[in-house]
């Protein structure tokens, strides 16, 4: 089956005209037909447009015209990335009918690179969550165990890649929303440096933390996607005006003498013993390749989550003020304007979104501003300084991506426990650093991920280390079987 190949392999086959874009697209659509009812990764599918685009690409190639670097490769976008003329919902009732009049910059770049959009993927409503259970529509299933969550918030994108419905997908990462689902679904997930990839057209959640990132089957594919989406964009005022390298040039396997810091704070209480063992095995693989690993301390790591739950809701409460039922999206019936706002927002937003708007409004109110909001911004400084100090001496920092394995749908009901899913990933958002999650083992048939964190704009370095590990990990090339481990698949909980 064509869908079993990696992005790099498919690009190669297309370039050699061994296969056509139409064949690849039809194969991906057939795969979606076969597994989508089980996985439930997509909110919207764009089948006809995909086939039309594939035909266009084939015609261009036949005529010897220039085609882009990803020409003919089927992919998916998280449904908080605006796509012109294609419904973009944020998995919220609030935007259930919203059709953006413009493309996000990443959507445009991928379109111009010739990739073929197969659809928009499920997420926790407005990217707030760690399981996709907060989607207003349905919960996506983890392809490795259909009763478990795929992680979140970009769970649909992670599951679509893991289930081989697409060759790659984009998500967004505010506290770990690319890396945690990548770990849970056994794929590679990269959150680039803040500012490396344009956020124009990404429906904002917490603007100082949000970053678009990719899901791919392996590290080379990740580099190929980065080569297209890492670009300065004047339409995003936080976009870094810095030329991006060819990321594939870093994939040389050479990690000799590379210094890896292993922060002890990421291996303490709450970590699953098997996850820990697998991450330690991965460290040993890198050491065997000549890298030098040493224990370090990032003393403020544990304060990442509490600071995040001030900063992110604060920014969200401001960003989500735009949803008032007037210009787009859901509108409730009302007799006056005040009632229109209140009824629209109360009925349009789900419980987690409302919770965070209330929390954010609370910490920003004048009585609490200094005690909560400014305090959190100061803690953000301390977290960033921890990394600055470590990176004065080390090239990369290696941690588990998550402390535990994918959990069952409906199993985590306590709010703070759910929030702690991002404990290993949130500090890098606070500091704006690039980080990648790479599969590093399997426990009870479920994937484990390790995280490599780099200096600002050093995506190349973490890709180099991730690639060297991947090529030498000795891990079996496992793929999900798409079955439930006993019992029936859960319906929406």
């Amino acid at each position: 089956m064509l869908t079993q190949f990696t992005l790099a392999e498919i690009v190669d086959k297309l370039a050699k005209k061994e296969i056509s874009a139409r064949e690849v697209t039809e194969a991906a659509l057939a795969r979606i037909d076969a597994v989508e009812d089980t996985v439930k990764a997509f909110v919207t599918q764009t089948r006809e447009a995909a086939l039309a685009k594939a035909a266009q690409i084939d015609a261009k190639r036949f005529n010897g015209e220039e085609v882009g670097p990803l020409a003919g490769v089927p992919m998916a976008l998280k449904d908080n990335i605006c796509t012109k003329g294609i419904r973009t919902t944020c998995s919220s009732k609030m935007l259930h009918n919203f059709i953006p009049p413009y493309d996000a910059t990443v959507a445009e770049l991928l379109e111009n690179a010739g990739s073929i959009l197969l659809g928009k993927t499920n997420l926790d409503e407005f990217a707030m969550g760690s399981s996709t259970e907060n989607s207003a529509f349905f919960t996506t299933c983890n392809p490795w165990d259909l009763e478990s969550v795929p992680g979140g918030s970009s769970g649909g994108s992670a599951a679509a890649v893991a289930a081989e419905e697409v060759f790659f997908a984009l998500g967004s990462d505010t506290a770990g929303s690319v890396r945690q689902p990548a770990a849970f679904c056994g794929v590679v997930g990269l959150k680039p440096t803040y500012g490396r990839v344009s956020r124009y057209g990404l429906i904002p959640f917490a603007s100082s933390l949000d970053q678009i990132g990719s899901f791919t089957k392996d590290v080379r594919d990740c580099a190929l996607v980065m080569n297209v989406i890492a670009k300065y964009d004047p339409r995003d005022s936080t976009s870094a005006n810095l030329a991006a390298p060819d990321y594939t040039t870093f994939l040389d396997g050479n990690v000799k003498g590379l210094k890896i810091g292993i922060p002890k704070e990421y291996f303490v209480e709450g970590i699953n013993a098997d996850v820990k063992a697998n991450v330690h095995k991965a460290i040993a693989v890198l050491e065997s390749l000549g890298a030098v690993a040493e224990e370090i301390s990032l003393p403020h790591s544990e304060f990442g989550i509490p600071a995040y739950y001030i900063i992110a809701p604060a920014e969200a409460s401001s960003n989500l003020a735009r949803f008032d039922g007037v210009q787009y999206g859901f509108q409730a019936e009302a007799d006056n304007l005040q009632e229109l706002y209140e009824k629209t927002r109360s009925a349009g937003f789900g419980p987690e979104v409302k919770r965070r708007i209330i929390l954010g409004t609370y910490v920003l109110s004048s009585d609490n501003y200094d005690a909560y909001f400014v305090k959190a911004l100061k803690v953000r400084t301390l977290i960033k300084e921890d990394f600055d100090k470590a990176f004065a001496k080390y090239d990369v920092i290696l941690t588990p991506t998550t402390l535990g394995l994918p959990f069952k749908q409906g199993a985590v009901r306590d709010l703070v426990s759910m929030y702690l899913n991002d404990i290993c990933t949130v500090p890098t958002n606070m500091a704006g650093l690039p980080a990648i999650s790479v599969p590093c083992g399997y426990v009870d048939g479920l994937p484990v991920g390790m995280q490599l964190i780099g200096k600002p704009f050093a995506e190349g370095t973490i890709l180099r280390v991730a690639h060297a590990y991947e090529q030498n990990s000795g891990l079996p090339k496992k793929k999900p079987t798409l079955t439930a481990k006993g019992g029936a698949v859960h319906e929406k909980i």
Partner: protein
Amino acid sequence: MKIGKNDVAHVANLAKLKLSEAETEQYTEELNRVLTYIENLDHLDTEDVLPTVHVLPLQNVFREDETHLCLPREEALANAPETEDGMFRVPRVID
């Protein structure tokens, strides 16, 4: 209790959210739980620490003052639940 039902109702009102009695109760309980957890930050002395609002060393990003095409009116209005005479329509504000 860090935050009472009245606080939650007040904040919800500021955020233009209308909560039922049951929701107010639920959010009060949940927010207390979250705020208690957040207050772990009080263990840190941040007296002499400067706040980080933004991680990039960017200041005043300027661009040329050029005119560009903007969204045509019909497209800007296309998603609106209600329009009239090329404008967004809302319930009457002034009697």
